[in-house]
Structure formats: structure tokens, C-alpha cells
């Protein structure tokens, strides 16, 4: 039993830390520190920097550009990246559709899509959820009807993150109405530029523009864009969602946010002294830090177990714990960050209009704390809501 890293892993951590320190563009880092969304260009720029180093898709098989790192190193890499902070690679390509393609896709699909995902030549979005199919995803009704060498797709996807930037969407579609619902679903790759694809923005409560409705009207999709077998899409989706959940603990991001909490609390006064010296504040911070430490060790137990068994990324009950606790800690940190700023969290800082010489509302550090708090309510809803995760623990782990 030991809780320290081996010297080689420590050296590895130093190496990636130094790389991030030097290579993350300053403006991009600043954007993240301030809690703003990175732009499409910032994202692509950063992923190309990672890709040039050979680190864009570390967890992929070596033949498709993976690094061959063991799960512990992958974890160290991701944690350091998040803590810097640097933009985490967009999950839809590298964590979702990429692994589905290299696991279930055919040779042509691998050659066609994987290199473009790694270099972010394509921006992928996830077309799973529908207005009537959220937690009960298998009840989705978007239809794909085979017509010669193409499918004709009709239906509506919703909550689609960054569809406004995407040129590809991977969708779950219904291809058989006669069988139980899980068995009539297929996994289709759809070019967003196809006629009949329409994206409409949904503004979130924080005023952000990250999700969309995607309407599909008589969209023609060549059959070579079917992944794996027709009507096996639900299996691929389960595989994909398992991958999504292991990445959702975001321990590095919470560590970064705690760094930020300390930084801002040092500058806010309470009863004549910096908040960071206020005992009640420190108790609240400590309570979050304890949970985070515990979660980090839980995560590391999962990671080292994976390293030993060689079964990487297999969905396990542990991923539900990581999802629930990870999201709760993210919500606790965004909440505390807002409370530190007190009344200064209240002004709504509109995006500066181009050419505007309106002054910022001071303190500028407070600009995004309330929107980030509101926005992070999403993390207990998406990726399989926390209630659904608890159902999984209760049924699959506890046998209830």
C-alpha cells in the first residue's frame, strides 16, 4: 500500500506539466481562468498543438495515434491538463465517436474519420437526446428508413452541445419499429452540411450559447455511414456512455477551481481580514477539499485496478460514483466561487459589444462566477443524470 507515484511517473508528471505551462496559449488559459467559453478557433489551435506533440488522443490504440500510456499516466495527463487549465479535448470526437469507430467501425471509416478527429479537422457533436427521450434514451423516435444505398432520416435531436460549430453529428436512430426498443436502434454518422439538417440555438439559464436543437428533415445519409451493424446501435451507445462517465469526474478541473477560490478569497475582505483567513470560510473550503481528496483516491483505485487488469475504459459501477461525486464537487466549487464574490456576483456582464468603449463592471474577476454557478447545474443532469447513476448503483452494485 502506498499513495505516492513512482519516480518514473513523477518524472512523467513533470514533463506534461512543463509542456502545458509552456504551450497553452496565454489568451486561451486566461479565458478558462476567467470561466469563459473558449472559442472554436482557440479550441482547434490548442488541439493542433497537442496533436503536433502526439498527445491529442493518448488513450486510443497506438495504430490510430495513441501514446500507449497506461491508465495511470492517462489519468495524470488529463489531471495536469485540466489543472493548468488547458481546454480538455472535446469529448464528442476523442472520447465518444472515436472509440466507437475504432472498436466497431470498418476499415474505411477508421481511415476516413480517425485522423480528422485527432487533428480536429472535424468538429463532432452528439445526437442522442430527443425531446421525448432523455433519461429513457432508448425510447428515441428519430427514424431512419433504408432507401437503396441511403437512409432517409427524419426526427429531432435536442440539447446538442456545440452543434453550431459541428460539421458532423453521430446519431442514434430507429431503424426497426417491430422489435423491443433497444433492438431497433442504429448508430449513424451524419454530415451536418446535408440538406435537411437545421440547427437552432437554445440559450441556457446563464445566457450561454452551448446547446442546440437539431432538426432532421428527409436527410439522406449514405449507408457507408452506418457504424457496425444495423440495429446494434444500442450496444455501441452503452459502450460510448461508459467512456463518457469515466471522464466526468474532472478532478483536475476541480483542483484548478480550488486554486482559483484561494486566489480570489485572498483578495476579498470579510470582517476586516481576507476571506482566506476567515475560519468559517476555510471550514467550507476544507469540506470540499476532503471530498475531492477522497474522490481522487477513489479514482486512482479505479485507475490502478484498470492498469493491472488491462481492461481499459470498461464501464464499471465505479464510474457512477465518479460521475455523482465529481459533479457534486464541481457544483460545490462553482457555488463557493460565487459566494466569495458576494454582491459583486450579481451584475450581469454582457459580452462587450464590438467597438464598445463601455467600462467593465468591477471587480472583473466576478464577471462569470454567477453564470458558471448556474451553468454547472448541468453536470448533474447530463451524462446520465445523478438520479439515474444512483439507480445503477442500487441495482447493479447493491442488488436492490
Amino acid at each position: 500500500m502506498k499513495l505516492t507515484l513512482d519516480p518514473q511517473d513523477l518524472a512523467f508528471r513533470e514533463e506534461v506539466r512543463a509542456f502545458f505551462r509552456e504551450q497553452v496559449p496565454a489568451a486561451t488559459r486566461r479565458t478558462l481562468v476567467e470561466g469563459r467559453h473558449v472559442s472554436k478557433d482557440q479550441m482547434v489551435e490548442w488541439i493542433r498543438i497537442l496533436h503536433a506533440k502526439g498527445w491529442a488522443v493518448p488513450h486510443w490504440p497506438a495504430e490510430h495515434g495513441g501514446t500507449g500510456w497506461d491508465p495511470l499516466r492517462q489519468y495524470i495527463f488529463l489531471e495536469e491538463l485540466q489543472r493548468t487549465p488547458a481546454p480538455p479535448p472535446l469529448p464528442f470526437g476523442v472520447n465518444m465517436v472515436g472509440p466507437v469507430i475504432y472498436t466497431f467501425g470498418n476499415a474505411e471509416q477508421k481511415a476516413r474519420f480517425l485522423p480528422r478527429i485527432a487533428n480536429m479537422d472535424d468538429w463532432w457533436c452528439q445526437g442522442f437526446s430527443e425531446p421525448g427521450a432523455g433519461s429513457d434514451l432508448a425510447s428515441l423516435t428519430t427514424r431512419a428508413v433504408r432507401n437503396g444505398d441511403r437512409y432517409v432520416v427524419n426526427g429531432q435531436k435536442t440539447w446538442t452541445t456545440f452543434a453550431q460549430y459541428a460539421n458532423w453529428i453521430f446519431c442514434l436512430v430507429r431503424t426497426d419499429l417491430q422489435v423491443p426498443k433497444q433492438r431497433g436502434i442504429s448508430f449513424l454518422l451524419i454530415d451536418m452540411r446535408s440538406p435537411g439538417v437545421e440547427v437552432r440555438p437554445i440559450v441556457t439559464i446563464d445566457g450561454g450559447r452551448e446547446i442546440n436543437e437539431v432538426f432532421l428533415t428527409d436527410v439522406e445519409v449514405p449507408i457507408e455511414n452506418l457504424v457496425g451493424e444495423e440495429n446494434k446501435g444500442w450496444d455501441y451507445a452503452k459502450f460510448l456512455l461508459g467512456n463518457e462517465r469515466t471522464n466526468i469526474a474532472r478532478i483536475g478541473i476541480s483542483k484548478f477551481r480550488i486554486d482559483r477560490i484561494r486566489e480570489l478569497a485572498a483578495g476579498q475582505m470579510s470582517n476586516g481580514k481576507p476571506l482566506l483567513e476567515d475560519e468559517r470560510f476555510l471550514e467550507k473550503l476544507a469540506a470540499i477539499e476532503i471530498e475531492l481528496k477522497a474522490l481522487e483516491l477513489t479514482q486512482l483505485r479505479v485507475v490502478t485496478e484498470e492498469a493491472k487488469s488491462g481492461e481499459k475504459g470498461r464501464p464499471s459501477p465505479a464510474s457512477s460514483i465518479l460521475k455523482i461525486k465529481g459533479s457534486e464537487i464541481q457544483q460545490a466549487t462553482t457555488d463557493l466561487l460565487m459566494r466569495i464574490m458576494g454582491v459583486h456576483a450579481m451584475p450581469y456582464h454582457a459580452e462587450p459589444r464590438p467597438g464598445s468603449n463601455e467600462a467593465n463592471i468591477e471587480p472583473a474577476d466576478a464577471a462569470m462566477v454567477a453564470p458558471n454557478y448556474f451553468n454547472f447545474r448541468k453536470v448533474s443532469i447530463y451524462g446520465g443524470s445523478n438520479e439515474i447513476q444512483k439507480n445503477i448503483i442500487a441495482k447493479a452494485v447493491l442488488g436492490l
Partner: protein
Amino acid sequence: MDFDLSEEQAILKQSVERMLERHALPRGGRELWRDISDMGLTALPFPENLGGLGGSSVETMIVMEAFGRALVLEPYVPSVILGGACLMHGASLQLRDAFIPGVVDGSLKLALATAEIGSGFSQTAIETRAIESAGGFVVTGRKCVVLGGDEADWVVVSARTGGGAGDETGVTLFIVNAASEGVTRQLYRTQDNQGAAEISFDGVHVTREHIIGAIGGGMSVLSRAVDTGIAALCAEAVGVMSRMHEMTLDYIKQRKQFGAPLGANQALQHRAAEMFIALEQARSMAIYAAIMVAEEDAGNRGRGIHAAKAEIGRAGRLIGEQAVQLHGGIGMTSEYPLGKYYKRMTMIDLTFGDADHHLAELARKGAMVGLL
């Protein structure tokens, strides 16, 4: 003991609700303000000899709960409740005669400017200064997040005339014309779409006649005004929470997943029950705040208000966060009204100190000893 509304109070509640129904969300704007004053709500808390209706804090509670349910954006609390309380509890007769009729008929709007960068939730840790000069004082400093400060004609501002940051004494209240030379305002909306401003006072000249309360003794007026404002916000919060709870209940009864309403899941039934418990506890504490705010003993009044604001803040956070959670994706959208209530609730929590702040203050002042 009697928790029932009197006949007049029941009529007040009904007519305010009816009036608000005539306006659409988001409820703000000139016409709404006119209806609010035409109904006499701007006159409500003022004594009859000044043209008011002589309503008590219970009447204010009734109005504020209705405002919360309807998500009213108009600056009723800044102008009528906070500004009004400053005038009633500290101003000279001349000042009352000069200002209250305008507040009563809605033609004049006030705001209260206390918070500063670096003051936290403290009313005394301020750096705005007022220095005596010929015939009055010269005020210099910068005030943050002045609610209603965007539309206010006159602003009640706290400044140090003596003592140092954090001292109870040495704070003086001035009522300053927002159009005075040296006053600059940066106008904006808050997260929940209320009007507000950052206000700078750059060597603003104020006459002695425009001092509210004693020189250096402004805190007794200010803390009473803030307590009055908090009691009103507690009632508003109850209205906000009750709407969020209703919307959530409706939603989980009607939305189906896995072939059954969401509300068929016991996990969600319990969640809805917890929200309901929090709402009823909060309602009790809003009533407590309305009664305690009229208490003459400043110590007991203050502790009662701390207790109420702490409870309201915690209940509001629970109900708001769970309402969003139980709605799933829909709850995250700005188009759906729930989010507006949730943001309003969160901003009420942050106004005049959040739940943690009031819990800490209550603990510091001996907790509830003598009040149980």
C-alpha cells in the same frame, strides 16, 4: 396566536395577485409601476398623515410574496421599502415631507447605496468618506450593486464621517440627488434582470439638511432599514420558492420517461417532499421576519432577521437547485420560466448577506438564546 389573514389582508392579497395577472412575464416596466402605485402599494408602509396607508410589515409580506410569485422586476424594495425605511426611521420632518409624498405616489424613486468593493456583506467596512465643508459635507467614494440605482432620482448613501473601517459609529447617511454634480452611474441589469448601478461620488456636495439620522449615528437607521428590506425579501423569496415548487410538481406529474410519469419514482417523490418541507419552514420564517422586524429591541430584531434570512437562503438554494434538477434539460434553458425564478432566488440569497453570512452573524451574537 393567529396566522390567518384578516378580511382586509385577504382582499389586499387577492387584488395584488389580480393586478399582476394583467402583466406578462418578465413583469417590469412603466405600466406595471403605474399599476403598483395606483393600487396604493407604494403608499402601503407609510403613515396616514403622510399620505400613506399605514400598513404593517404583515401587509408588506403579503405584497412581497405576491411579487415573488409573479417575479416583479420593479424597484419596489429599493425605493419603497429600503428608501422608505431610511426616511421613516431617521429623517427629519422636513425631509419626510419633502420625499415621502413622491415615493407614495410613485413619481419619485429612491435607492440605498451601501456595498463597496472590499466591504463584503458588512455595512460598516466602507471607505466612502464625507468630509465637512462649508454648509455641509463632501462625499467621495464608490458604491457597488445599488439595486434600483439605475432609475433612482435620489440615493441614500452611507459614508464615513468618523471612525475606521468596521466601526459601528462614524457612519452617516446622506440622501443625494442622483443628478448632482460629481455623481456618475454605470447602469446594468443583474443576473435576475433587476435594474442596478455602480455609483461613484466624486466630491459630491451635500447639505446638512440632507443627512438622515445623526452624524456618525447612521448605523442604527441603516441596520433597521436593511432588516426591513430583508424581511420583505424573505416574503418575496417564499413567493419565488412556492412557484418553483409548483412548477416542479406539475412537471414531474406530466413528463413521462420509461413509460411512467417521473413522479412515479419514489426517489423523486421524496425530493419533492423535501422541497415542500423546506418551503413550509421558509414560510414560517418569513412570517417570523415580518413580526420581528417591528421589534423595538435592535438586538433581538437583528437576530430574528439573521435567523430568517439564513433559513430562507438555505431553503431557496435547495428548492431552486432541485427544481432545475428535476426538470432535466428543460430546467437549464433561459426560455423556460423556471430559470428566472431560480436566478431571482439566488440573487435574493446574495442580497444583504447569504445564508452562511447570517448564520455566522447569528452565532456571533449568541445564536437564538432568549428567542426560543
